[in-house]
């Protein structure tokens, strides 16, 4: 089976010299949920935005391979990628409160996706919108179509965003921290919704999150990012069972994982902050915060393959 999305050696730099993403490789298989997890500022959102070609102006993106199905995204002009966005690949964002245009109704904003990519009438677009609003669990979808974003709660708006992303039956859905801005109870509902939609529709889901709890519930595959690099990637089960990179272990110690953390067990923390990485940075970016730091960590860091689908970059090979 061929991956829906395949990225090899993605690099993104910003005009201020920051290397936001350094050599990231990942694959998303059809129907699979791939979680990218890491602290804020680790480059996970930038990775997601690179796929959609939605990086802020001035950002430079390069990759050996960045393929969505048969489309070579590295070679396509933005107006061609725009034909895929909202159609075959869709994205939802962290801030449901501001992600919808305050000046237009829900229905109009949803219908225009179908009008753009399928060239159908407004009426057909609205029918489809109503159908999807129902599917994402919004009651009285017909009434919602005529409402404006400010009349909806945050949870409802995120449901609208999800429904809008599904207008053209995408094969890949990128969700950038879709639940971070929501109340805890709403978070659980949205995650459940995403999971059931994914199973129903056979979506490939690239889920960006900082929350390992979310990862544990959703992911089949996980890429752990730190300072612009994927420091460990593995099957979700393998990762939780045997985290190899000290950073992954640190992350896991910080949060209680349902069914894995015993009650009363103290939680850990990772001291220090993520360093700012410029271009040409050499060595392990985690070494200043790492309990196992050694002189070798200042040099080139080897890539270790622990099993066919478990990789890590660390000087402690097989750690």
């Amino acid at each position, binding site marked *: 089976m061929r991956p829906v999305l395949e990225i090899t050696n993605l690099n993104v730099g910003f005009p201020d010299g920051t290397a936001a993403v350094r050599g990231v490789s990942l694959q998303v298989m059809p129907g699979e949920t791939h979680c990218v997890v890491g602290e804020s500022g680790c480059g996970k959102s930038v990775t997601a935005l690179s796929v*959609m070609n*939605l990086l802020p102006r001035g950002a430079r993106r390069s990759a050996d391979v960045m393929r969505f199905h048969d489309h070579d995204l590295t070679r396509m002009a933005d*107006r061609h990628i*725009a*034909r*895929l*966005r*909202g*159609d075959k690949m*869709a*994205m939802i*964002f962290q*801030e449901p409160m*501001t*992600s*919808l*245009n*305050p*000046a*237009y*109704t829900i229905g109009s904003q949803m219908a*225009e*996706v179908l009008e*753009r*990519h399928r060239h159908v009438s407004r009426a057909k677009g609205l029918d489809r919108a109503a159908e999807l609003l129902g599917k994402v669990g919004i009651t009285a979808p017909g009434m919602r179509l005529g409402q*404006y974003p*400010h*009349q909806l709660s945050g949870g409802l708006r995120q449901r609208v*965003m999800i429904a*809008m992303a599904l207008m053209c039956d995408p094969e890949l859905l990128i969700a950038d921290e879709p639940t971070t801005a929501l109340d805890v109870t709403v978070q659980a509902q949205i995650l459940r919704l995403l999971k059931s939609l994914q199973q129903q529709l056979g979506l490939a889901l690239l889920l960006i999150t900082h929350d390992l709890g979310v990862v544990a519930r959703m992911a089949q595959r996980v890429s752990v990012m730190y300072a612009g690099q994927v420091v460990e990637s593995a099957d979700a089960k393998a990762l939780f069972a045997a985290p190899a990179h000290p950073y992954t272990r640190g992350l896991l110690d910080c949060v209680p994982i349902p069914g894995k953390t015993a009650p009363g067990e103290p939680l850990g923390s990772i001291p220090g902050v993520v360093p700012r990485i410029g271009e040409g940075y050499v060595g392990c970016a985690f070494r200043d915060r790492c309990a196992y730091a050694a002189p070798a960590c200042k040099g080139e860091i080897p890539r270790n393959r622990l099993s066919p689908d478990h990789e890590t970059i660390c000087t402690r090979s097989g750690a």
Partner: protein
Amino acid sequence: MRKFLLRRAILAVMVMLTVLVVAFALTRLSGDLAVSIAGPNATAEDVVTIRKNYGLDRPLPAQFVDWAVAAASGDLGRSYLYRAPVWGLIKERLPITVCLGLIGLGFALATAIPLGILAAMREGTLLDRAIGSVTLIGQAMPSFWLGLLLIITFGLKLQWLPISGVDTWDGYVMPGIVLAFSAIPALLRLTRSGMIEALSSDYIRTARAKGLSTSSIVLKHALRNAAMPVVSVAAVQLGFMLGGSIVIETVFALHGVGYLAWESISKNDFPVVQAVVLVLATIYVGLTLLADMMNAVLDPRLRGG
């Protein structure tokens, strides 16, 4: 929304009352209006007669109340010079001034909005700076001088356009351009900053994620949100342009309300001056009210409340 507009309407009425007081006080500034009307060659008896004839010998509050009540009911008094009702004089000339103002606003919007959008889309580039210098030039250009330059160039040297009057439609072109120049800087700046803000917003990222075309993103999604302050300022600018028409109409010899006012000022015809102040202020207040209503239509959040 009704509550919002009602508050605005009450405010507008209060502003108008204040303007009435100012317009009245204005002509009483010199101390003795009768002396001003009579002119330098008048005898003491002339002044006394004038004072009596125009009711200037009565207490000020009484004069004000009479005048204000009459003005509010549409009677703006009689011109000393034309010996005719002031409202008639103004009504005759208002179409020229309003026409000029609308043409000026049209030119200004047609220039400022596309340039503002372009500058916002290319923020920080050479093009953005070039457009920014248009703003600076517009701000520094004395409008009467620009008018004279245009008259020399297009009226006299090239003979493309008439140098005065509006007997034909092309008489409006040069004064319209001059008037537009004064409004372009504010409108351009506002369009640019509004568009920069809108284009960097989350909903524009969503629109791009939906794969919409650039024109739809810029013109439908961003401009709609940047338009609200532009509407308010456009209304205010139209008000200022009508007020500034006194200079333009004098330069181009257009017989509109501004020219009438200038003529009346130089000939001490103060009922006319007072009335023009009042009419222009009323139009200005009406325009701001109109802008509030348009914003209420444009912004669904205002519509709800």
